[in-house]
């Protein structure tokens, strides 16, 4: 029972990290119907920026704020300079552009920061807990609290504010929303900024959690998050969160109990195939 609870907790922590990286992707797909693969590169840049500002100021809060600001700007730049002009083409055109941005940004990170794995020597100042006989390390408490706070913020933003209303309107029908007097382009940019800011937080958290920041840290999330948003239902934010948590838990339990040397990433894709075959709208999607 002990072991099971401990594994479950690890699974939720990993699932939370997946959720933070995937959220931006789900938001962008929901509003523009673009598979924003380059989101993983924004996450990588977030980790590097967080480390840079942390090293310069010695404060994790400043590091985080710098990463959030930098990534929000980067996200909006990608949207304004690349995706928006390409919207008139079929969806695979922005997708190809997105893959190109991913590779280019990864190389920029490598050229600027060097090929070495950098360490992120910051501490998340959260308490280590002892619940139901299970030790919860402070890093896990930190990840759970931060994820919960971001999810609460996002829920409030999308359901309780006018901006959220506009975001939902634009995602339902861009042309009609425009006709109703919503500045849809501003709403799209805002969505990119929010998604990218969350990716920045995810990058910083992952950098601290594993104490590693490197230029290819986005390559696994780049394809895994795609599987997650398909499982969750394309464009559905609650779906993306649920799929992330389920996947994190499933992976952890599989490794903990079944002695299968199956790469954990395989599970995400098995789930994606199953969803595509039996419930193509995903867990939370609508047809």
């Amino acid at each position: 029972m002990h072991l099971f609870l401990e594994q479950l907790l690890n699974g939720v922590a990993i699932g939370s990290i997946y959720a933070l990286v995937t959220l931006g992707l789900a938001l962008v797909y929901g509003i523009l119907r673009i598979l924003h693969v380059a989101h993983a590169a924004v996450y990588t840049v977030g980790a590097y920026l967080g480390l840079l500002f942390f090293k310069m100021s010695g404060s994790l809060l400043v590091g985080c704020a710098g990463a959030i600001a930098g990534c929000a700007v980067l996200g909006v730049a990608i949207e304004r300079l690349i995706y928006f002009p390409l919207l008139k083409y079929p969806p695979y055109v922005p997708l190809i552009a997105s893959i190109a941005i991913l590779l280019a940004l990864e190389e920029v990170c490598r050229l600027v920061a060097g090929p070495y794995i950098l360490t992120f020597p910051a501490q998340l100042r959260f308490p280590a807990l002892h619940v139901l006989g299970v030790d919860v390390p402070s890093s896990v408490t930190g990840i759970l609290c931060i994820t919960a706070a971001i999810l609460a913020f996002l829920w409030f933003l999308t359901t309780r504010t006018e901006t959220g209303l506009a975001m939902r309107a634009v995602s339902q029908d861009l042309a009609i929303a425009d006709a109703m007097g919503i500045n849809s382009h501003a709403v799209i940019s805002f969505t990119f900024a929010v998604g990218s800011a969350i990716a920045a937080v995810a990058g910083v958290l992952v950098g601290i959690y594993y104490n590693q920041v490197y230029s290819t840290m986005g390559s696994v999330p780049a394809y895994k998050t795609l599987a997650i948003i398909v499982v969750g239902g394309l464009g559905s934010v609650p779906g993306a969160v649920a799929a992330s948590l389920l996947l994190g838990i499933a992976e952890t339990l599989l490794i903990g109990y079944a002695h299968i040397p199956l790469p954990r990433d395989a599970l995400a894709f098995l789930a994606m195939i199953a969803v595509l075959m039996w419930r193509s709208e995903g867990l939370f999607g609508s047809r």
Partner: protein
Amino acid sequence: MKRFALWTLALSLVLFPLGAAQAADTVKIGLLAPLTGFAAADGASVLNSVKLAVEKVNKEGGILGKQVELVAYDDRADGKEAVGLAQKLIQRDRVVGVVGGSYSTPSRAVAPLFQEEEIPFIAAYAVHPDITKAGDYCFRNGFLGMVEGRAAAHVAVHQLKAKKIALITSDNDFGRTLAAGFKEYLSKKAPGVELVYEQAYPFKEKDFKPYLAAIKEKDPDLIFASGYYFQTGPIVSQAREMGISATLFGEEGADSPKFLEIAGKAAEGFLIVTNLNRDDPRPEVQEFLKLYRERYQIEPDMVGASAYDAFMLLCDAIRRAGSTDGAAVRDALAATQNYNGLTGVVQGFTPAGEVVKDVQVQIVQDGAFHYYGVVKDPTIITP
């Protein structure tokens, strides 16, 4: 006219290296190392160390009355990349010998090429058995996975007194052969020791908590964790964070200053089997360590020291052969006896081209690797 000038410039740029290569009267030795990509830290260490070796050799008058010229290429630890560069070393640079300062995958791919051209090739630290199987021109200065695995098990049982052991293995050639050697020793020489957990993890794994939680439940007194520093680093820090108090034991993949940085304080007390003893009193070793630290402002590691030795072994063999003829150098290399290397005294090479030398045990104390013990038993260290 402008176009003509451009063409001439382009042509001269293309031809320049060729001309330079033929004009210089030097002994050329090739080096392949992963200078970029995921293994870049190891590649940098290799190149830095071999540069020191070249300097030393040339300062002492070179070999056969000529200066040594190093031709180093970046293979990105990639097999396809390495093959092209090996062709370049053979055809354009016409090197007389090659130091393989890279991982198993590229080293395996290039060994047969050098064998065919009868150019002596020494893999500095790559562990895969196929490298030396390419033929009699291929040698290895690092330990075979089986040897290192056996030595690790020997240390675990006899020096660390483990009774219940858990194995967590990097799922590639490197980790698998280490685990095989480890288990072979346990089943043959220490049947009383219990293996309570065994699992391989995929190469890109970052989160080891699911494995460690299962290990914690089995309550072993020693965990043997194989892998590179970017894998064992997180294993060690996550294990300590989860309150696992068992002895943590690794191998040369963790022999890197980056390991210490990634694992942080949790690294204290972590042990490895490797081939570089930082506390070796021999002056060659201490001089190298001092010079390396001064020059590069970073801790030296086993991959660099192994590449340094591979380069020096090659120079030593050319000197003894009295010529740069491939067959003569190969025979001289095969006849190497008690060579005083950084990574220990090289007793010699087996007929298969495998090195015979002591296996070192290092422990992390006060944020640095230090001497803990040594395995000299010939039944363990002879492949």
